[in-house]
């Protein structure tokens, strides 16, 4: 692939880049060749090594081995500032605006044009920001406060900021995840402009249609290894999916449940505050139903709605044939629902609390009388769950913050199993969990369904969906785009409906 265009200079060339964390290899032979005037997509699933590679290029991490050439010259960036000095800037996925400042102040943060006596030259700053925004075709006034802008425009400002460094290489990590279609088009126009100026864009996105639309080249990483690269014009979406997913599924999934015909939860036409539209499905007894979709597809909002966490409560839900309108989590818990949320640190655990307190958190009414906690019952109950889930904790009273990620996740599961639920809502149940704990969690989920429980599970990991689910619903942009039976499910069919 590189032989065809020998005359086009390479802005960045990385080969054999290696990085491991405490014995765990995150990236073993990262390769990447970025040409001037092109958009190069970096593709791969979770744990493929993309982030590690980008962090090395940006100087956030230091590589263990390998070479990185910048304009043919070997480089080693010690810090993000170092990378910036060498013409590499990034638009991060996590936005970090200073809300009270204006657009122009945000763009020139830390390098404001100055006048005599160190006064900021606001006029010059605003006019330069205006020139920049106009050039990019972004309809944003430099004097607007960031706090008054919608998320999509904040994203565009961040992009303008990255470009204002006059970098030659711009890394964009999921830049469209917060954008609507119109804003995404503006972004793509801006990217075309950059290409025309001979700059190089490294583009990371899970949305393959988008990649095929705007990228010129692709590179695929999988399991910390370089897999392939090439011209996007010469590849189909199916082939790209195949490269990203790779191997067929290992049979590491203990599937023991069989769904019955009895409908436990029936959902008709629910909407939610954030762009979930007209979602309808049934959940059966003994079934593991997967809800698959990219970030921002509205999948989490569906679970929020079922658990009484959304303000908007349009649509109808029935539970065992009875109307069910969850107004609060307490009400949902009372009806036998349990919700393992996506981010255990943000909404799953009280990190300052003990293992015992966390396990008992959702069962407090059951474990206490009006005047007191029933003596010893917390310790007994949490001890039972610790044994059941094989949680490795020194004592029940140790703080949950001292546990590993896998054990923390098991504490969250234990918390919900203690409520003796009939319906389990899972949002990315194995995120940030090591392989061993993962298979234990799969076993727990599967045997819960085998005992007659119902599971509605969100997962971005196709392996997990294929290994555990009896059926999969796929969401995109807040709507269901398809339903796949176990025999129809494959990594390709899932991604095809989702991306």
């Amino acid at each position: 692939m590189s032989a065809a265009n020998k005359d086009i200079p390479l802005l960045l060339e990385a080969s054999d880049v290696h990085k491991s964390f405490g014995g765990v290899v995150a990236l073993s032979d990262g390769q990447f060749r970025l040409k001037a005037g092109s958009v190069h997509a970096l593709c791969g699933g979770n744990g493929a090594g993309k982030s590690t590679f980008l962090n090395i290029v940006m100087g956030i991490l230091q590589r263990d081995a390998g070479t990185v050439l910048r304009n043919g010259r070997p480089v080693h960036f010690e810090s993000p500032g170092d990378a910036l000095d060498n013409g590499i800037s990034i638009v991060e996925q996590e936005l970090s605006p200073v809300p009270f400042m204006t657009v122009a102040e945000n763009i020139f943060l830390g390098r404001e044009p100055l006048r005599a006596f160190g006064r900021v030259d606001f006029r010059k700053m605003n006019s330069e920001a205006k020139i920049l925004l106009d050039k990019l075709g972004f309809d944003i006034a430099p004097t607007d406060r960031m706090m008054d802008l919608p998320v999509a425009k904040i994203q565009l400002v961040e992009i303008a900021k990255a470009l204002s460094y006059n970098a030659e290489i711009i890394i964009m990590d999921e830049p469209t995840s917060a954008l609507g279609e119109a804003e995404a088009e503006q972004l793509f126009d801006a990217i075309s402009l950059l290409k025309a100026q001979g700059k190089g864009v490294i583009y990371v996105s899970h949305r393959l249609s988008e990649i095929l639309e705007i990228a010129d080249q692709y590179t695929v990483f999988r399991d910390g290894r370089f897999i392939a690269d090439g011209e996007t014009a010469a590849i189909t979406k199916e082939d790209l999916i195949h490269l990203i997913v790779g191997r067929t599924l290992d049979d590491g999934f203990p599937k023991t449940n069989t769904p019955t015909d009895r409908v436990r939860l029936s959902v008709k036409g629910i909407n939610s505050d954030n762009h979930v539209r007209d979602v309808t499905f049934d959940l059966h007894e003994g079934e593991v139903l997967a809800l698959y979709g990219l970030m921002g597809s509205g999948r989490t909002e569906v679970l929020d709605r079922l658990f009484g966490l959304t303000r908007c409560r349009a649509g109808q839900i029935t539970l065992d044939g009875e109307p069910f309108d969850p107004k609060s989590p307490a009400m949902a818990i009372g009806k036998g629902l349990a919700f393992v949320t996506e981010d255990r640190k943000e909404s799953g655990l009280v990190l300052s609390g003990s293992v015992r307190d966390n396990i008992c958190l959702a069962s407090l009414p059951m474990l206490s009388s009006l005047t007191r906690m029933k003596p010893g019952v917390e310790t007994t109950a949490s001890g039972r769950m610790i044994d059941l889930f094989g949680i490795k904790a020194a004592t029940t009273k140790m703080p949950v913050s001292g546990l590993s990620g896998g054990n923390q996740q098991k504490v969250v599961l234990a918390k919900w199993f203690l409520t003796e639920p009939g319906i389990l809502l899972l949002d990315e149940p194995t995120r940030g969990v090591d392989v061993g704990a993962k298979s234990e969690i799969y076993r727990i989920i599967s045997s819960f369904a085998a005992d007659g429980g119902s599971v509605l599970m969100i997962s971005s990991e196709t392996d997990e969906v294929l290994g555990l689910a009896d059926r999969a619903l796929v969401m995109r942009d807040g709507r269901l785009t398809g339903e796949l039976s176990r025999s129809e499910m494959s990594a390709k069919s899932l991604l095809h409906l989702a991306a």
Partner: protein
Amino acid sequence: MTEIPEQKTTQAVPRAKTGASGVTDALQFAQKFGVLIALVLLCIFLTFANEYFLTGRNITNVLRQVSINGILAIGMTFVILTRGIDLSVGSIVALTGLVSASFATTSSVAAVAGGPYPAWLAIGLGLVVGGAVGAISGLFVARYRVPAFVVTLGMLSAARGLALLYAEGRPIPALTDSYRWIGTGEILRIPVPIVIFAIVFLVAWYVLNFTRFGRQVYAVGGNPHAAVVSGINEGRIQFSVYVISGALAGLAGMILAARTGSALPQAGIAYELDAIAAVVIGGTSLMGGIGTVGGTLIGALLIGIVNNGLDLLGVESYYQQIIKGVLIVAAVLLDQSRNKRS
């Protein structure tokens, strides 16, 4: 400098477990019980430095002085545990003192028509007024999501104004003897304020450690999001802690009035600061979710004994303020170095 956070945590855990030599054990002990150790050392020092310190009379005196700030600080502990703050307690002290005193005074000018009423009625009314003022703050915090600092700063001003308005800016003197008992009486030769403080402390300790409500307070402060997902009504818990803080401030206000024999509209100015200081010195985190009433008790005692000791040693009262300031910052610094380690 460029380490990723995950690495840090995985490295820190084994280090803390394996590297525990005698020296680090002692260090950890000092960090965990730092304020308590400081309190004990201070008491030992004062015992030798001043013969009057360790006399029954002086100890009783210290405890009686501590009891009012201690009661306020216990209410404040509930609030701070939920990530809140209650700046209005000093003003509630004045307001409830006056309202309840107006039902228990023999002065014909200040009394409510038909007074004086029985002490139990006046005291019950004071608790209700304090709780009601707390309920208003709690409503704005829990229901309308106004930051607690702002709501209670507003209440600090409003409740003080109400107090001045109610008493027309004048003190209410000549309280009945039965009412004054809560400030000056004794049970088994222990002054009543100390007994009340002890009861409040024990009940608060029980509630925070052995009831569902206590667990919910810690959960809401530790991670409100997780608490809500776990079925806890965050708003109800927040509302409740301001009612508790308000009612306890009312109790403190009545004890103060009863002790001095008259209720003053300017009573309790800046009391909220001493209460917050006791809570913070006692190791409760302003970020919520971490802390104990035991710590608050120690914090309140430390402040009381420092004041008393400096008095006994004849140090100018100006120094007391400087030392209290140093204490607050030092205690939190100690706490943070401990939390960073774990």
